[in-house]
């Protein structure tokens, strides 16, 4: 069995992550476009005690699951996991390698790519064959533009995929599994796992909130956040924020929505003064109904919103708060 596409699978809490099945779905589509067999799609799991996970992945899209196990790779480290990835790519010689653009994916994938002497297309929103060549679509300038890359004669063509870019694979397959002692090499590991910590949270759980009103850089200052908080309170919702807001200390970190904060899916999401960098959008695009208020008519947030208002949030938001209160009979 040849290996055309190798997927770096991720697991967490004893389950294969959903992002991995997004890669599986993409691999099946690419194999179809290229005229390759679905039997040429393999996946790599790295960790310890992975037998059942490997079987599950082989039953859901991977023709062969290689599971590399060892005490040294039980927890994720850049050294351990990138060495295994690099070694398995060398052995399998795939044409395309797909990893998820997650904190562990973006950490170890470029290490392996550099070891193999190939470039990497990061945070791709799509990969598709055009005229017989796979082209990699990704954002540039923080989402102002999309860039389409040709990785030419690179072998393998290596990419990390944005979470949620492709719908997850739901089909059933009968793949095989193969255990492998994790090939971490003889050199000592220089990155050592020393624990996972939860950042302190003030009891804010945005993931369960039915309504979230978020503020971004456009709010301008910590003391101006009152208008955002007032609207959230009138709607019985929670206050969210984009990264610059928590970086500047206007709100605590647990309010941050996006790729490095939390992913939310409220019934109603109102974005105030948020331009819509892709890192924010991936964390809120699954919301039921999205309202965006921003001064810049070209802001990417309007691309995902249902309704947009191009204007000054300090006029619109207080007016909306007043109207909501009136509608609820509290005006």
């Amino acid at each position, binding site marked *: 069995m040849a290996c055309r596409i190798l997927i770096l699978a991720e697991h967490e809490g004893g389950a294969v992550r959903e992002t991995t099945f997004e890669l599986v779905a993409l691999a099946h589509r690419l194999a179809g476009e290229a005229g390759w067999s679905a039997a040429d799609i393999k996946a790599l799991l790295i960790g310890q005690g992975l037998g059942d996970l490997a079987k599950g992945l082989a039953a859901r899209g991977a023709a062969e699951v290689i599971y590399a196990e060892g005490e040294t790779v039980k927890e994720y480290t850049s050294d351990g996991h990138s060495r295994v990835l690099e070694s398995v790519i060398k052995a399998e010689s795939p044409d395309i390698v797909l990893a998820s653009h997650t904190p562990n994916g973006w950490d170890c994938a470029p290490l392996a790519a550099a070891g193999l002497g190939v470039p990497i297309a990061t945070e791709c929103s799509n990969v598709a064959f055009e005229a017989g060549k796979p082209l990699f679509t990704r954002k540039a300038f923080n989402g102002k533009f999309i860039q389409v890359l040709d990785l030419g004669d690179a072998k393998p063509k290596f990419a990390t995929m944005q979470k949620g870019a492709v719908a997850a694979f739901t089909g059933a397959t009968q793949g095989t599994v193969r255990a492998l002692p994790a090939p971490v090499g003889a050199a000592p590991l220089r990155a050592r796992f020393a624990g996972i910590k939860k950042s302190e949270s003030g009891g804010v759980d945005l993931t369960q909130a039915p*309504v979230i009103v978020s503020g971004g850089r456009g709010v301008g200052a910590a003391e101006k956040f009152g208008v955002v908080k007032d609207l959230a309170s009138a709607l019985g919702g929670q206050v969210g924020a984009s990264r610059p807001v928590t970086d500047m200390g206007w709100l605590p970190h647990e309010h941050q929505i996006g790729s490095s904060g939390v992913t939310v899916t409220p019934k109603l999401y109102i974005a105030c003064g948020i331009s819509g960098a892709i890192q924010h959008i991936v964390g809120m695009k699954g919301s039921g109904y999205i309202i965006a208020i921003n001064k810049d008519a070209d802001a990417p947030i309007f691309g995902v919103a249902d309704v947009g208002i191009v204007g000054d949030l300090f006029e619109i938001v207080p007016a909306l708060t007043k109207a909501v209160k009136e509608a609820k009979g509290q005006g």
Partner: protein
Amino acid sequence: MKSLVLIKQVPNTDSPFRINSAGTWVDEGNLTYGLNDYDRYALEELLRLKDAGKVTEVVALTAGPERASSALRTCLATGADRAIHIKDDALSAADPLSIARAIVAAVKDEGFSLILAGLQADDDNHMAIGPFVARLLDHACATAVTRLELVDGTTARVERELENNRVQVVELTLPAVVTVQTGINEPRYASLKGIMAAKKKEVRTLSLADLKGGAGDVAASAARFRTVRLAPPPKGKGAEILSGAADQIAKELVKRIREKTGVI
């Protein structure tokens, strides 16, 4: 302990961005440039370690065309001790792998114990140079770091940002390459005194031709990494834009919130 910060000069986000005539990148003639925001945090982190007496020297390096020298000047004025500029017009369109190789060729004999970079550049958003340099130098690596502490002369303890408000604590054996997240610190600005002092600091300029394999590698990179096209993002479903007076808009929004979400 010698330390290095990898920096990049990028277009200011409020620059007038236009796609070039070939449709492959932005028209650079229209843009104004500044130091990549993430890199300011990386520089600050090293300056703090120097203030604390934990590193002896902070060197700033960039690989880019002539214009990039002003970003190095900013670093020197902010407190970096000296700078290295790998200067070549070909670098503005080069792929991250050949840039990383050029950086490695320039620094491999310097003996830096700690190399910092921003998590990503605000122009091409690759997030690759840091890990590439780490792998090519065979150094330890950590990305998206929100806390960094030098335990002693051989070990750094870092916190890597994960999803859902979690961090992974990692111990790295030095030498190491670390990319930092924004928010790790509060970057300082250059003082007038710093700006004056920067004029006397060393900027070593190297050309790709000075570096082993450099020019040929950059020239050959198009065969493995080429932008086919740059385009505005797809509009998606696109928002319906409401306009009018604030209270009219507010009433209209309330009506929609009622109909579409039922939360009122």
